[in-house]
């Protein structure tokens, strides 16, 4: 069974390595990922948000709704942990 799993994993890895042959070069300034949206953020961040750190200005200003959704995820995970472990906490307190 381990051999089957190993062959499966190697097949997936081979396909992914075949996919990287068409990727842009590592650190290419003209790659499509760094040509489309990010130049506008880099050029306008001090003018529009008055924050020198671009990561902070995008995280809290341009994409604030994204951070709001992240907070929802953390809240849901915390509530799930409390609901799962609630019985054991109460049992420990009674002992």
């Amino acid at each position, binding site marked *: 069974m381990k051999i089957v*799993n*190993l062959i499966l994993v190697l097949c*997936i890895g081979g396909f992914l390595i075949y996919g990287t042959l068409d*990727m842009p070069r590592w650190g290419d300034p003209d790659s499509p990922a*760094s040509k489309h949206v*990010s130049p506008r953020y880099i050029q306008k961040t001090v003018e529009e948000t008055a924050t020198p750190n671009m990561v902070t200005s995008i995280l809290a200003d341009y994409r604030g709704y994204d951070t709001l959704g992240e907070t929802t995820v953390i809240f849901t995970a915390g509530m799930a942990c409390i609901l*799962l472990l609630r019985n054991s906490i109460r049992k420990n307190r009674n002992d």
Partner: protein
Amino acid sequence: MIDFIIERYNFWIYVILMMIGLYAMITKRNLVKKVIGMNIFQTSIILFFISLASKRGGTLPIMKQAHGLENFPVDPSAYINPVPHVLMLTAIVVMVATLGVALAILILIYRKYGTLEEDEILKRMQ
């Protein structure tokens, strides 16, 4: 040939890390080992996205000129692409939230069945 390898060797190492995590997730019987494999898998994906953001000749995504120079022209190729950094900050926090819920479920499984091995749990469920 050497240039071709130097430009892409780190993508291949990320694929190797992802294969290690996937193998641990589908082969190991212990549930903690499965969670460790999931952690390695997620970290390799985050590493891939961060390496897409790097630029040859670019510095950290923090402005060199401070306030008072708002109309100063900025060259976008002098700074690293900041958008993948923001997305991966969110992904790291979601990764730890997932880890917390997984470990809570794992503690409950141990309390009910007395073991963390997958085959013994399947045997005791019958």
